[in-house]
């Protein structure tokens, strides 16, 4: 029993005990609970036990037992406290003490606590079963992925057999041989070790969810707009097409490859700051840079909507276009996931140096670290892409439309029109009240701060800083030329010559290195500096390379085709046109079909890059019929060829630049 001092010694002060709400108790139970609670208060205040019994009616002999019960540890890691005073509450595990009597098979009575009894008899079995259930038995056997209760039951029976439990003992005397008890045991074990078993047994989504909802506030809380933005890419869950004008003057639709969407979403307000649709099956660092540049320097303007009855919500749009002063606003931290494009130096070195933000890469498979952008994508998918007849759904088993590719062409789900829907959807998103923002819209939440200049202002680059400043690539090139051969000085970047009138007359620079400032989105010209830092001006690309806007990526793609001798670009050809003509001639399986999805997507991308109308693709003009070879003159008498065909060497077409 022990004295009161022994019981109370080192106990938690009674004010800190877990409490009980007795509002739902019936009168008798409430009265009993209150009496016991009061008795404990008095007991721990060292009121004489006789007086406690007199005042509360609780027997003085039961007080030490009740006190110990109150101080016992509960499953939640705290003491039972006043919870132990709840009448008829079981605070410990049920433990059977009676021997198991023989019950005929099929009977379900008299078996309560049978498993507990046998586990008490063989504690090592309980330990082993717990390890298997929690997927901790890796060192004991080959770990089984997500062990099922029936498998655990089999292990249980094997253990019992090893211990010598005969067929006349439980569980072998029952119909299911203790299966239900093992199922319950496993459920309780998994529930009791919630975090551990979720980490060990469940998929990455479950593991990611485990990190949230812990009741502990996050260490990082961004409490102003533009404190942090989340950037992520999303593979659009629908097939889309582009209009194709056939040589016969008809219009048909060509299916595109799966497109991607990249969005920049503000962490505080959930407003979409910028987005871009990527006409490529995979996103790369250039696309990320583009969307960062758009968010930092771009100004949103509504599209010219061609879909009937489609209109922007009143006051909706992206902040750079609808909030005064938000254009050019910079953010303090960028939150990425671990995609390779996000880890590129173009992003973490150039963009960061240009805009001055900190970069964060979240852990693998933890999408919950960027909740706003993930939620925005989910919302756009639900409201737009998954409703299209050509939706691919989240997976082949989830939401995929039958014959989605065919339906995209049949229903003319055109990318240009989906882009309009997307722009309106983002404008709507930014103008939709959110519970998390006290029923303000994301735009209103930003405006709230903008309207309080005494506590907030946007961080911006110094006035007059060009939009491209800091994003450009710096590299060096050697000036080439030859006075003896009359070749004027030039430099070469990606197999194209660049020069300007100053460089062309600076023969003394031949063999020296120039520092180049390259805008990889527009390779028509580069800015050159001498080794001492003096500016040499803009050097223009030779031939038509200096006329049509093109990116470095496109230049490399064209160069690759030239190397493979698949296309020939002369000084008089526009490389972009040659490239697009080449892509348009890469036909599908049917002879009448246009370019394949991959090539069609690339053509649309190039058209967007050069600033041309990307809503349709024109079929290349028909290739003139090949000139028939010269007639062969055969000496019929002797059977020999009189006119010799030119050798194969002379018929080869050499790539000319």
């Amino acid at each position, binding site marked *: 029993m022990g004295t009161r001092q022994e019981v109370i010694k080192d106990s938690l002060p009674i004010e800190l005990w877990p409490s009980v709400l007795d509002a739902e108790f019936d009168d008798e139970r409430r009265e009993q609970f209150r009496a016991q609670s009061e008795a404990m208060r008095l007991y721990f205040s060292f009121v004489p036990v006789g007086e406690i019994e007199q005042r509360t009616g609780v027997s003085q002999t039961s007080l030490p037992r009740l006190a110990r019960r109150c101080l016992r540890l509960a499953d939640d890691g705290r003491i039972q406290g006043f919870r132990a005073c709840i009448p008829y509450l079981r605070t410990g595990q049920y433990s059977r003490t009676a021997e198991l009597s023989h019950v005929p098979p099929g009977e379900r009575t008299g078996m309560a606590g049978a498993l507990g009894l046998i586990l008490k008899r063989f504690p090592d079995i309980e330990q082993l079963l717990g390890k298997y259930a929690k997927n901790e038995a890796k060192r004991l056997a080959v770990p089984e992925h997500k062990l099922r209760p029936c498998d655990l039951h089999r292990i249980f029976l094997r253990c019992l057999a090893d211990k010598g439990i005969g067929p006349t003992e439980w569980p072998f005397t029952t119909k299911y041989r203790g299966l239900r008890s093992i199922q319950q045991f496993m459920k309780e074990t998994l529930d009791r070790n919630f975090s551990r078993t979720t980490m060990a047994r469940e998929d990455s989504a479950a593991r990611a969810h485990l990190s949230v909802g812990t009741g502990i506030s996050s260490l990082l809380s961004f409490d102003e707009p533009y404190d942090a933005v989340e950037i992520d890419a999303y593979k659009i869950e629908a097939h889309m097409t582009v209009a194709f004008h056939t040589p016969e003057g008809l219009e048909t639709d060509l299916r595109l490859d799966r497109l991607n969407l990249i969005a920049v979403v503000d962490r505080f307000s959930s407003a979409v700051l910028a987005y871009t649709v990527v006409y490529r099956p995979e996103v790369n660092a250039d696309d990320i840079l583009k969307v960062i540049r758009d968010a930092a320097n771009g100004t949103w303007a509504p599209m010219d909507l061609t879909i009937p009855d489609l209109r922007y919500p009143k006051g909706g749009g992206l902040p750079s276009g609808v909030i005064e002063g938000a254009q050019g606003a910079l953010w303090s931290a960028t939150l990425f996931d671990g995609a390779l494009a996000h*880890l590129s130096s173009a992003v*973490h070195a150039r963009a*960061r140096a240009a805009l001055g933000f*900190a970069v964060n890469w979240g*852990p*693998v498979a*933890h999408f919950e670290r960027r909740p706003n952008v993930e939620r925005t994508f989910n919302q756009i998918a639900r409201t737009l892409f998954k409703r299209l007849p050509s939706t691919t759904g989240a997976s082949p088993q989830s939401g995929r439309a039958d014959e989605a590719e065919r339906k995209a062409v049949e229903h003319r789900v055109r990318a240009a029109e989906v882009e309009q829907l997307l722009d309106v959807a983002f404008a709507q998103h930014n103008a939709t009240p959110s519970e998390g923002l006290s029923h303000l819209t994301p735009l209103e939440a930003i405006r709230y701060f903008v309207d309080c200049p005494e506590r907030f202002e946007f961080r911006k680059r110094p006035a007059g800083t060009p939009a491209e400043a800091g994003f450009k690539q710096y590299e060096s090139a050697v000036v080439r030329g030859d006075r003896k051969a009359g070749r004027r000085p030039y430099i070469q970047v990606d197999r194209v010559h660049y020069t300007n009138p100053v460089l062309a007359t600076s023969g003394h620079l031949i063999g020296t290195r120039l520092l180049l400032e390259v805008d990889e989105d527009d390779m028509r010209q580069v800015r050159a500096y001498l080794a001492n830092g003096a500016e040499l001006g803009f050097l223009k690309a030779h031939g038509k390379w200096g006329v049509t806007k093109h990116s470095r990526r496109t230049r490399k793609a064209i160069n690759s085709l030239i190397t493979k001798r698949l296309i020939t670009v002369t000084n008089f050809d526009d490389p972009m046109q040659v490239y697009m003509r080449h892509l348009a001639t890469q036909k599908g399986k049917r002879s009448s079909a246009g370019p394949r999805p991959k090539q069609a997507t690339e053509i649309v991308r190039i058209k967007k890059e050069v600033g041309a109308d990307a809503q349709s693709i024109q079929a290349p003009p028909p290739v003139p019929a090949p000139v028939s070879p010269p007639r062969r003159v055969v000496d019929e008498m002797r059977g020999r060829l009189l006119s010799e065909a030119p050798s194969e060497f002379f018929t080869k077409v050499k790539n000319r630049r």
Partner: protein
Amino acid sequence: MPGTPTLPSRQRARVLDTYRSRGHRNSNLWLVYSVKQNQDILLHSDRSLVHWLAFLETDPSVRGFRPITDELVAKLGVGPAGATILERQDRQLEVHLVAGGRPEVTTVETGVGPAKVRVITADELQAHSRIALRWLKAIGYAGLSRFSDLTPVLNQLIPSLERRWSGKVADLLEDLPGFDLATVYAALVKAAIHGSVELDLTSHGLCGASSWKRKLTQAR
């Protein structure tokens, strides 16, 4: 024979290696610009970020800091990512263990002198996190002007600080009409991080209404 890797390529490799070597670690990786050290720093968790902002970068009594050495890692029994050795303005050395365990030693030999060991608890970090994160925006201004020469601004800013001694940031902007707002902010943040002025970000992020106070120590 391959040439010496350039600084950007080394940084790229470092970032990639660091990210990949983390495996499935459940923490964020941060790349930040330290004004105090004038270099980029990789931080391995949100706790390290708050520690860097609150206890290293914006603490004017800290002269410099660097990651803990391998020997100290072994001595203290902590991960290299969670510990930093720092030097105070009075040349005293200190080792900070970020939300780490309880080391048995209170002083440790660092190779350049004895250092006091201090454990920065999770509660301390939580208490500092709100204001610390506001410094990200301020440091962003300094990051923008990282490769710019701020001497002309500082030449006018310092006398203005001396004359006024305290006030609002907007007052300083009035004193420097020829300079862009972002440039003045960058110079002010640099001065604050180097300890010549105290910026008050307790109620909101850096803006014209933020308070400042001159400090006796001079900017280095």
